[in-house]
């Protein structure tokens, strides 16, 4: 095991200032530590007044939290619990609804990594949570959204070659404005060698803001292109539809701020990409 992987597996019980982290105290309480770590924490608590006070303060807050009462909880959470059944929770269906077509012949579907805690295929997209934009499946204002490769439907989790174009088509029930952002996921080569597949996303405007209406569906062709770099592994398309005109300020490193989030709808599609890096760009 490389030193970086060993370091990852071990973690660290202490903050950079030498005190126990909040998580360490909880793991200590739950028995989620090795014997050596448990002894280390216990020894530190016996000698550090700051940490022992924090330990006492944290535990003073904790008392059994009763299962949710539908009258006392917020309406949205109560509805979810009520439909799920208190104490015996059932799965909540919260899929983003894209048009469902036949399985594409060339798209290679791979299981979506649901262990990652960022937005996945069946959760509210991270950009929507970030901007406050609604991401309900096919909001009343959005009639239909299709993403296709060679007339075959593309869904989140599909694996698509870089050198294939993708077409976008959006039908809305009301006039407004649409734009598409693309986030390219990259994998650092050294991290790859260490077994780390985390990406460092950078976003750009794929399709600028244009006006759209019920009688004028919006279409866009994402041209095929060579794989940008050997580290490029994925793309996320964020399709934003707002009733009011908006601008996308490309502040480096920061997501765009969208005006009037309540008047917007957001759909995201995450796809994996594969292919060779071209010797030169045509």
């Amino acid at each position: 095991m490389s030193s970086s992987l060993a370091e990852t597996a071990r973690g660290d019980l202490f903050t950079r200032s030498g005190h126990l982290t909040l998580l360490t105290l909880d793991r200590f309480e739950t028995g989620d530590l090795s014997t050596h770590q448990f002894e280390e924490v216990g020894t530190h608590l016996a000698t550090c007044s700051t940490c022992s006070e924090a330990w006492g303060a944290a535990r003073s807050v904790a008392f059994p939290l009763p299962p949710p009462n539908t009258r006392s909880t917020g309406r949205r959470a109560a509805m979810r619990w009520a439909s799920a059944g208190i104490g015996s929770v059932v799965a909540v269906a919260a899929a983003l609804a894209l048009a469902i077509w036949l399985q594409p012949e060339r798209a290679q579907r791979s299981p979506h990594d649901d262990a990652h805690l960022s937005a996945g295929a069946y959760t509210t997209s991270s950009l929507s949570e970030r901007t406050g934009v609604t991401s309900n499946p096919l909001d009343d204002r959005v009639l239909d959204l299709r993403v296709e490769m060679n007339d075959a439907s593309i869904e989140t989790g599909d694996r698509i070659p870089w050198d294939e174009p993708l077409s976008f088509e959006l039908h809305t029930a009301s006039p407004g404005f649409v734009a598409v952002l693309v986030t390219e996921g990259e994998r650092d080569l050294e991290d790859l060698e260490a077994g780390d597949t985390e990406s460092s996303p950078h976003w750009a405007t794929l399709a600028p803001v244009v006006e759209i209406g019920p009688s004028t569906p919006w279409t866009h062709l994402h041209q095929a292109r060579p794989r940008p770099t050997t580290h490029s592994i994925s793309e996320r398309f964020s399709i934003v539809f707002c009733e009011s005109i908006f601008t996308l300020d490309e502040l480096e490193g920061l997501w765009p701020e969208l005006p009037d989030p309540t008047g917007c709808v957001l759909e995201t599609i995450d796809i994996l990409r594969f292919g060779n890096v071209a010797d030169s760009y045509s």
Partner: protein
Amino acid sequence: MRKPTYRGSNRSDVGLLYAEHSARVLRWTLRFFARDEAEEVVHEIFVKVLERIDGFRNDASPATWLYRMTTNHCLNRLRNASRRAELWREQGPLAEWTTPVAAADQEPRTFLQQFWRQLDDDLLAVAFHYFVDGMTHAEIARIHGCSARTVGNRVDRLRALAAVASGDSIKEPHA
């Protein structure tokens, strides 16, 4: 130390998790929200737990898995709030449990307070753990299942963004 085993049905496992950890998740959530809202958030989190129970079973550390999920959920919920919300609670029983901010961390932390809403999920989560929780690269890497180098890259990226925002030249990362 008793460790519950989570190999039953989804419902029973979530019930076990709730009984074992709901108070703990409430403590973590109280760092972001007032009590009334925090309780609702805890329930939201356990609904998510049920949706992602397979991911939990594959994780060796239930507390870490829940901690990561709770932090991400709270940060995302804050961003979705209709009002501006304070990222750090200034009142409450855990207010004193704050990590001393080193001089080199002050600027990125200030930047984080102002621009957290516009940071992508991964960067925000790492930045929160580093500049608010005071965790080391190794611990953040363990929580997120990535390399310490990736964590370092993200911390450096936030420092760079903070430096650009303040108009300063990019400083070397804090050792």
